[in-house]
């Protein structure tokens, strides 16, 4: 009886795992001053954590049962892991190479402004809400 129970539990755990399979595809870096990792692929979704420039993020591909693995959600969002948090971030905010960050280039200058946690949060929100565009090359 106990063997049956163990087998059942094992089987059910496999089936739960089988619903969503995550695989780390690449490591990318956050390229702006501050940013947010979101709970859902939307800029208005809850922020799980604030990340700073050059923060490394592991980008997942996700495969759900019966579908192909995919990396992009809601047109432009990656599912990533930052430290202990797993959430969504816009793909255009990430860079393949470690970026040259303003706060790394001028660390003592930035320190002088005594930025509080709320400022870093707001700075990240600013980059969530900016409408970006670049005009084409001549």
């Amino acid at each position: 009886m106990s063997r049956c129970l163990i087998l059942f539990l094992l089987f059910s755990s496999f089936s739960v795992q089988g619903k969503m399979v995550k695989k780390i595809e690449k490591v990318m870096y956050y390229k702006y001053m501050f940013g947010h990792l979101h709970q859902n692929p939307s800029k208005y979704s809850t922020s799980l954590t604030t990340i700073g420039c050059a923060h490394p993020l592991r980008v997942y591909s996700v495969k759900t049962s019966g579908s192909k693995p995919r990396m992009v959600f809601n047109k432009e969002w990656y599912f990533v892991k930052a430290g202990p948090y797993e959430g969504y971030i816009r793909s255009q905010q990430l860079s393949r190479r470690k970026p040259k960050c303003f706060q790394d280039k001028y660390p003592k200058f930035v320190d002088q402004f005594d930025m509080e946690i709320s400022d870093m949060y707001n700075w990240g929100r600013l980059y969530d809400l900016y409408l970006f565009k670049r005009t084409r090359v001549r």
Partner: protein
Amino acid sequence: MKKLLLVTLFSFSFFSFAQNSGKPTSKTIEEKEGELVDFKSIQGVLKEDMLTQEVKKKVSRIQNIKKKRKKRDLQKYLIPGEDEIWSFLSELWLVKSAPVLKWDFQKPEYGIEESFKELLEEMGHYEIDVKVILVNTPVVTHMALPSSKGEYIFVLSVPFMRTLDLSKMEISILLFEDFMRVRKGYFANFVKPASFGSVAGSNFKGEKFPNALFKTILKKYDDIIFDRGFTFQQQFEITKDLNRLFKSNMKYWNIYYTLLKKIDELTKTNLLYNGYVKIFPSPELQLNWLRPKKEVL
């Protein structure tokens, strides 16, 4: 006993490693060796062992490391130059003014940035980064903030564009007017004190950081955006510039003219926006400057 000794040694070595690794400027092995060994006192021995050349190499290597470290330390105290500092200051101002500006709110995708990009390209402005932040307040209607080289930050009020029922093209023209102002340096010239030129791009190692100067700049951001705005002369120049630019494309000229008419009417009828003329003097005058002069025969 042996075990106790091993544990003590291990913990000591671990603590010393942890302490050393925490220091940002911990010395390299070569530097420590250089401090410990006095090569001058053993010159005779070195000569006998034919090691003089090796010592020379080692000493020059240590000097190089020290030089690089000094340079790295000095670079940490750099103040960004004018081509980099503005985006930091403008964004800092946006962050600090978040409670007043109320830019963190949900809104639909208006597609403003796409339409503005097309207008910029049509006007011949290429490889430009545009950042638009929409605010949910009538306190600021529209404004371009100085930013890094090739980048422009725009603040645009959603209540303002809704009250005027502005089309995407009208919004783009409004932003283009702001773009021209910021390019002419009206904003930056107003907010930066005379001493700014010598501070930007300098190094403050061993000196007091010019805190007051940056406080003044941020205070002047408030001044120009909320109270002072631009001068009649600046407005005249901008209006004349846009007049010249848009004359070659009458579609834009007409939109600009209609837009100014709308704003003029709004500022005269809506109390919420009667402070607009203080910031952008004045839509009525701008219309006059745009109107072709009647020839007296």
